């Protein structure tokens, strides 16, 4: 997780909303990439879960975008995608070939915990009351996301606790 060039103390509500949208966009794209990777490695259960996360992130992104447009229209943004990395998106090394649905959910859960940590860490530096309220809302949203992932984990059968290594051969040198 990394962030660069964002001054929380002077962050406007417009830019805070844009930042939140960028964070959701990044997570959505990463889950899309992971779903594609799982398709390529014939792991449909993990791919299906990652697509579920794509929908969740997209939905939240759309809600934030609607709020941004309603309040600020198409006023130019002062934040860009190059300022953030891996805030809510799972780390690239969280994916593995042949990962089970359980492992996929655990990776997503870790990402939601990471995102929650981001908002918790940023809050003390924020001075604007509206921005603070937004970040508090987003912090709570990440807890809700964790609950959603935990609910998916609870639906899994006990068999899914098998490790990938239990049924995947070691890579074979040639």
């Amino acid at each position: 997780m990394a962030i660069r060039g964002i001054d929380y103390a002077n962050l406007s509500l417009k830019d805070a909303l844009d930042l939140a949208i960028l964070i959701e966009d990044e997570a959505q794209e990463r889950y899309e990439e992971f779903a594609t990777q799982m398709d390529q490695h014939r792991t449909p259960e993990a791919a299906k879960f990652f697509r579920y996360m794509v929908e969740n992130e997209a939905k939240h992104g759309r809600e934030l975008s609607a709020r941004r447009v309603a309040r600020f229209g198409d006023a130019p943004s002062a934040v860009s995608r190059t300022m953030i990395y891996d805030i809510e998106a799972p780390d690239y090394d969280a994916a593995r070939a042949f990962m089970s649905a359980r492992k996929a959910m655990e990776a997503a859960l870790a990402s939601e915990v990471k995102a929650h940590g981001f908002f918790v860490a940023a809050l003390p530096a924020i001075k604007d009351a509206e921005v603070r309220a937004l970040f508090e809302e987003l912090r709570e949203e990440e807890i809700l996301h964790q609950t959603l992932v935990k609910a998916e984990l609870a639906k899994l059968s006990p068999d899914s606790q098998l490790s990938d290594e239990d049924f995947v051969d070691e890579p074979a040198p040639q």
Partner: protein
Amino acid sequence: MSATGTCEYQPKDYKSDLKPIWCPGCGDFSVVQGIYRALAAIGRPPHEIAFVSGIGCSSRIPGYTTAYGFNSVHGRALPIAQGIKLANPDLLVLAAGGDGDGFSIGGGHIAHLIRRNMDITYIVMDNQIYGLTKGQLSPTSQKGRTTCTSRYGSLEEPVNPLLYVLAYGAGFVAQASPTDLVGMAAVIEEAIRYPGFAFVNIQSPCVTYGEEEHQIKGLKAISESLAGLGHNPADRLAAMDLAQHYGHKMHLGVFYRNPEPPPTYGDLVKERQTLLSKDALPKERILDLFIKK
């Protein structure tokens, strides 16, 4: 690099429709993101960029960009990149590959691009293994490493890519890692902007054949920022001193940037062409040069 554009580009403008087929978890996923960001910061349109690679997992990378790409021959990315740059000096030319491609089969080419100071940025994704061919010893594998081609452990010292290029006189030498994508993108951008040969070694772990300590978590544990150490990138000897820690510590950032970059090979060729052009024969009389008078 010689010129930067004025149009604003976003990282996604450099992302092609081709889906990467690297193993999930591969460090190269982050590297390609770093390249997208660096290219967006440079702002040259994709059609003004040529991206050449050799053979290997990492050499697939040009295909994942919207630049002109050439996934060429094993170890031959640099000579091809050089030819492209000479033929069309206005192109921004990038070369990429793995440690085997760059320092084994293609090892002989780097020295010549450095001594010519070709205005090319060379990005090596160093994973200390031949991944595409399923886990053989590579030139940067640690001594003692057990692989399918070193059953009882490697007897060879690894090549040190950083010292190698510094010793040949590269004007820009840096190291990056997927553990810090923002830093990696900044280093690649700086390498592209350097007017001359620029080398970026990226410690990009192989999740399938790489060792545990070379995965992201292991790399994080041995990472140190060169800027944080107070290193002066204009000091070549200090850079060489730090580069000796390759394989034990992972210093991230710019090791060396020549504060007074010499002319590039392209500059010298242009100068020579200008000098000789006044006496040049018209095309239809060019064969006269070979006729004894």
